[in-house]
């Protein structure tokens, strides 16, 4: 299976002898181009058009992150799965308010179901989360079906999430970190910094997978399509954030793999240090590579593959073959 290359060092990324090489002052390192799915660039990396052409030929995406770990943008090579048909279908489902609401509701449903699954997991491991489980269940059973507009749906999802984030203090009760509500742009405590960075990774991973399908990342359903950004990846990421980003966060903090020293403070803002980012990325990749038995396919699949499968389900929904149901974790 192809892998993701995370570059933290600074140097030059180049095409060298028909493969990818990174040159730093001390050394040159080769990365097998046939095995690279995408590249996440965190260091100060130079590159030229020659390497972009080469990446385009090999259908490799490059995602850039700022010094503070914020998403900067992607090199999205020329689309190789061009499908006007799929774009029309996507637009059709966006333009029809009923169809759009239906899809948006599905994404929120997936997000809440998976949040519930995470809460239940820790509840069964001796953390008293019954209050939160009951609250999220209420959101799912009564608030979700009563939402009649996208705005209501967004507001409801936001409320459910802020409720959910409070539970982090119970799940991580004996760790040195506490969360006082969700803060972003910038995050004001280490847990918020972790949530933000983890979510960013999920967004970008989903974007990479969208490139490998016929879908157009510009048309989202829960997140309004606008002139500025990709939105479909944000929609699909909602479903996976609890089981990928949050579960990895609990592992890292719970096992003491991150300490207060792994965060940099900049005024009231808190960011992950490079070492902290490396640790998170490593655990995140381990999670994505881990496999489980897929009941419907009757074979083992990794979470990485699961992201792609979710997009295929969405394609099927859009072309009217099968109603989309979000992935819900069972453990």
């Amino acid at each position, binding site marked *: *299976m192809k*892998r*993701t*290359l*995370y*570059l*933290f*060092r600074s140097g030059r990324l180049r095409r060298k*002898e*028909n*493969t990818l090489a*990174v040159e730093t002052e001390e050394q040159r*390192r*080769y*990365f*097998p*181009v*046939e*095995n690279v799915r995408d590249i996440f660039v965190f260091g100060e990396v130079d590159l030229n058009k020659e390497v972009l052409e080469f990446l385009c030929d090999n259908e490799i995406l490059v995602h850039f992150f700022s010094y503070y770990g914020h998403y900067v943008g992607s090199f999205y090579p020329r689309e190789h799965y061009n499908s006007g048909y799929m774009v029309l279908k996507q637009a059709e489902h966006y333009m029809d308010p009923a169809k759009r609401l239906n899809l948006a509701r599905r994404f929120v449903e997936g997000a809440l179901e998976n949040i519930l699954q995470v809460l239940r997991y820790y509840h069964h491991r001796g953390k008293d989360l019954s209050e939160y489980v009951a609250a999220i269940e209420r959101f799912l059973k009564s608030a979700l079906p009563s939402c009649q507009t996208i705005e209501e749906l967004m507001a409801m999802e936001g409320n459910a999430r802020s409720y959910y984030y409070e539970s982090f203090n119970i799940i991580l009760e004996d760790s040195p970190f506490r969360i006082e509500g969700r803060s972003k742009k910038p995050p004001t405590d280490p847990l918020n910094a972790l949530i933000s960075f983890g979510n960013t990774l999920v967004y970008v991973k989903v974007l990479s997978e969208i490139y490998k399908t016929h879908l157009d990342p510009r048309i989202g359903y829960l997140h309004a399509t606008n002139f500025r950004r990709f939105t479909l990846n944000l929609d699909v990421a909602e479903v996976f954030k609890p089981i990928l980003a949050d579960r990895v966060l609990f592992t890292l903090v719970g096992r003491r793999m991150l300490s207060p020293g792994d965060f940099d403070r900049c005024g009231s803002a808190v960011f992950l240090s490079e070492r902290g980012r*490396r640790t998170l*990325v*490593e655990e995140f*990749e381990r999670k994505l590579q881990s496999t489980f038995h897929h009941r419907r396919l009757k074979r083992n699949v990794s979470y990485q593959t699961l992201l792609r499968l979710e997009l295929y389900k969405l394609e099927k929904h859009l072309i009217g073959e099968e109603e989309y149901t979000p992935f819900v974790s069972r453990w």
Partner: protein
Amino acid sequence: MYVILVYDVNVARVAKVLKIARKYLHWVQNSVLEGELTEATFRKLKHELGQVIDVKEDSVLFYVLGNQRYTTRELLGVKKGGEEWIW
């Protein structure tokens, strides 16, 4: 599948073999590369190498492992290269 490639070829073709192998596998040390491949990329690799080596003189060995579950790898001395995705 996990593949370990070991080559012993005439010095005239060493660079060519290395250049091709680096497109698919991680360099470990002189004349040794390894990495995860799919059936298709493994075939492509063998085909490409077949084009440059002299079958009467050169030797390229592939150790093919179904997976790495029951393998361990021990190192004595200097670590020269290997598989790294976070760098």
